[in-house]
């Protein structure tokens, strides 16, 4: 039996409620998924977020992807042409990106608060209202985005650009271009990103980091 046929068979067994299918799958995937994710994600994430690319986070993302699939196998459609392995990899990849984005937002917020504290120490009289004002710097990015872009898709693209997202596949997913050939996806994504960036750069002064 090929690996693909094996996965398909296990998928059917999970769907039918076979009590041992989850255990068999976990044994098989623990090896394959971990190696692939370690190989692929660590390389990319160390380049982008060297301070956050801990193996703990990657392990958690892998475990989440496997457990989520075992409990809800119907989320994966065998007949759409994507392999189970790629589905899990994408899921772990997505979780990891979300975790990193969350950490980044938290860090940004901490920086804003640290800035406020430093100003206070320097002798600026900081009222309670002033602190609240400083904290509201983060939502202000969202407000500017909403003002600049009427289309929710454009708003999402702008958020991703500001979050430092660089993966073409992530932008293609938001734009609904997954079914296009990669070359066309790249072209379309670049066009949209250029358009959004242009608008963003025109209003640079309005967006506070």
């Amino acid at each position: 039996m090929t690996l693909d046929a094996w996965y398909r068979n296990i998928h059917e067994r999970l769907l039918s409620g076979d009590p041992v299918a989850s255990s068999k799958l976990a044994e098989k995937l623990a090896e394959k998924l971990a190696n692939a994710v370690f190989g692929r994600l660590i390389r990319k994430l160390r380049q982008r977020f060297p301070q956050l690319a801990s193996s703990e986070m990657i392990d958690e993302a892998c475990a989440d992807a496997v457990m989520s699939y075992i409990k809800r196998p119907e989320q994966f459609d065998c007949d759409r042409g994507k392999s189970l392995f790629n589905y899990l990899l994408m899921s772990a990849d997505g979780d990891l990106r979300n975790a990193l984005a969350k950490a980044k937002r938290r860090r940004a917020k901490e920086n804003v608060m640290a800035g406020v504290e430093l100003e206070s120490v320097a002798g600026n009289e900081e009222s309670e209202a002033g602190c609240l004002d400083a904290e509201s710097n983060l939502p202000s990015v969202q407000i500017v985005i909403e003002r600049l872009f009427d289309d929710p898709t454009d708003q999402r693209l702008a958020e991703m650009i500001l979050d430092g997202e660089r993966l073409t596949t992530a932008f293609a997913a938001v734009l609904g271009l997954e079914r296009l050939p990669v070359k066309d996806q790249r072209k379309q994504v670049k066009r949209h990103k250029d358009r959004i960036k242009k608008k963003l750069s025109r209003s640079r002064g309005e967006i506070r980091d």
Partner: protein
Amino acid sequence: MTRHPLFHRLVERARSDPFFLGRALAEYQQSNGVDDDALAELLDCKTEALARLALCRMPRSDAPSFQQDVRQISEYASCSPDQLAQILRRTVALLSLQRTPTADANQNMLLAARDRKGERKRDAE
């Protein structure tokens, strides 16, 4: 056999998730003060088989397929089906007992609160 750390992470998750048999085994171990070696001995299997067992789906004790599921799981993990069935039934019974007093206590507290409220209302009248 040396397993990948991710496999152990999945087993740990299974031990706290009622979807998996691992949760019932962990519950049994905790309430009976049984460690892995003793549990393996009880189930007549190797200690390594406990990880396999933990990751199996928990069969519903009230489902007609319970016996068949237990047999299938015990064949897969090479353990005693009778012992496994007994442990699972005991744990399910234990869990339902643990739930009942709390539910009763909550219900009693609710009734007591209602009584007091009723008394105050009557006093005010």
